[in-house]
């Protein structure tokens, strides 16, 4: 049975949103998604999946605070403590059981509610082996970037090219929080943070919400919807133990892509996929992820980005909407935002950052520091 996306709703991404409580932010994204899908959540939605982590929200049990603003009160709602693409995978499976026709996936960030972001991320480190050392948690990204750059012989210039591309791309995305006309030289002269990463290599946090409405093929047909199909989806985790995981490549993204390609019957991703939205919350991650999902050969992503191969007009447009470097880090909503952008592109609804003639797109996610978990979705337009 095929499963399609029939509704997309997003708020703007902003560094802070004092005018909204987290509930009100979720309500806006949900309202937009239901209007887009033409669906009444109170009578037509069979299942709601929200994606959230307690410490990002500041609640002992955040699941309590999810139903009302998405139309889920006294309805089947659950929290997937994962990123939005994992939530999408679970809604996809629910529909595949045949018992659910229409499902909703929600993810958001109210990062501006957090006063001590480093403290929250640090609290995710292994309490026996890592947390007592007292380092900033981003040192893990610094170490991984070092291992990746060294192994693939990628230059710091390539990282700067990723940042410049994504922040410039965001200038064409009215929802983006951190659009800027930045060039590689500015990135390379920004303050050092976790060598080889500089300040501008690290996506800044943002608030924002994303809601997608999914339907079975039969339900989509009944509603005369023109869905974007979830042709394949996969998710996987490498070791949670920092010391034993693979530091040079994103094994989780490779495994997730293999699963998604198997379901989507994609055999040669580099030729079959027209564009990609991948996690770039640290600049090197975009390159690492492109290689892991098979859209670049090992060691080549860095050279390709420098040559403009991932620009909107390049051979493989990557993060045309601006990525997290341009839109802001929306934490667990990051992956769902990627899927939403791919869906809008495939519908031809991406506005001034629309790319022409795209039929198949890839969305990829990572669960941020300190995880080695990620997901991949292959979306396709038309029949």
């Amino acid at each position: 049975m095929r499963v399609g996306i029939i509704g997309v709703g997003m708020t703007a991404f902003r560094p802070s949103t004092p005018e909204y409580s987290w509930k009100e932010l979720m309500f806006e994204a949900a309202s937009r998604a239901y209007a887009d899908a033409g669906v009444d959540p109170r009578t037509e939605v069979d299942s709601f999946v929200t994606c959230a982590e307690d410490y990002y929200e500041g609640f002992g049990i955040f699941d309590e605070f999810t139903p009302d603003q998405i139309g889920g009160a006294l309805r089947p709602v659950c929290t997937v403590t994962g990123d939005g693409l994992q939530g999408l995978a679970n809604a996809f499976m629910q529909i595949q059981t045949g018992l659910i026709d229409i499902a909703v996936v929600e993810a958001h960030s109210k990062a501006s509610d957090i006063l001590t972001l480093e403290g929250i991320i640090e609290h995710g480190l292994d309490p026996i082996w890592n947390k007592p050392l007292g380092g900033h948690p981003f040192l893990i990204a610094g170490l991984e970037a070092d291992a990746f750059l060294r192994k693939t012989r990628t230059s710091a210039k390539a990282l700067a090219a990723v940042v410049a591309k994504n922040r410039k791309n965001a200038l064409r995305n009215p929802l983006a929080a951190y659009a800027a006309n930045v060039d590689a030289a500015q990135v390379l002269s920004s303050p050092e943070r976790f060598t080889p990463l500089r300040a501008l290599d690290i996506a800044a946090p943002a608030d924002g919400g994303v809601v997608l409405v999914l339907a079975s093929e039969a339900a989509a047909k009944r509603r005369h919807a023109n869905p974007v199909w979830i042709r394949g989806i996969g998710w996987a985790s490498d070791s949670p133990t920092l010391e034993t995981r693979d530091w040079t490549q994103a094994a989780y993204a490779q495994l997730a892509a293999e699963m998604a390609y198997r379901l989507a019957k994609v055999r040669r991703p580099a030729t079959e996929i027209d564009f990609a939205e991948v996690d770039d919350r640290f600049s090197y991650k975009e390159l690492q992820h492109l290689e892991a999902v098979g859209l670049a050969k090992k060691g080549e992503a860095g050279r390709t980005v420098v040559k403009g191969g991932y620009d909107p007009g390049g051979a493989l447009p990557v993060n045309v909407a601006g990525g997290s470097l341009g839109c802001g880090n929306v934490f667990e909503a990051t992956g769902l935002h990627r899927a939403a952008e791919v869906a809008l592109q495939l519908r031809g609804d991406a506005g001034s950052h629309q790319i022409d003639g795209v039929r198949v797109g890839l969305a990829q996610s990572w669960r941020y520091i300190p995880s080695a978990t990620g997901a991949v979705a292959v979306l396709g337009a038309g029949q």
Partner: protein
Amino acid sequence: MSERIKKWPGVELSAADLNEGKVTQTRFRPNAKYAWSAGEAMSRFLAELQNGRLIARTCHSCKRILFPPRMFCESCFRPTDEWTFIQDTGTIETFSISYLDTDAKRIPDPILVGVVSIDGASPKMGMMHYFGDMTKEQIRIGMRVKAVWRPWEERRGSVLDIRHFGPLKEDAK
């Protein structure tokens, strides 16, 4: 299950093993601080508490008067329509007589706490709060109560601007 498995896993520790460091361990207190945006509905709610008033939102679709107020109706899934003030009197829906404080420490004088449905809001809609000016023998479900407000200068825009709910003398209304 029980028949086939001989050893059930788990190494039990005593409080002393942990607290006196008889097993190796790590201690930590996370730095996890927040300032939640109150947003549209709660900002107004808090401002009105500071004014000594309770405010609700109406939904013209289901005809409910929603308290605590929200900008959307969770039943109709539509934006709510209007602000409306409600009373500061109500009825005890349920209560507890607590000999425990927040840290589960025992206290000699119990806290009276419960849910009050507020007059003027739709039936059963209310808030959790303390009860005062009554004994644990006097408190009962169905009892009529009224907010006892802190003096104006002590109010901060918080549910604590109400000191507690005390008995309502109906004839004095």
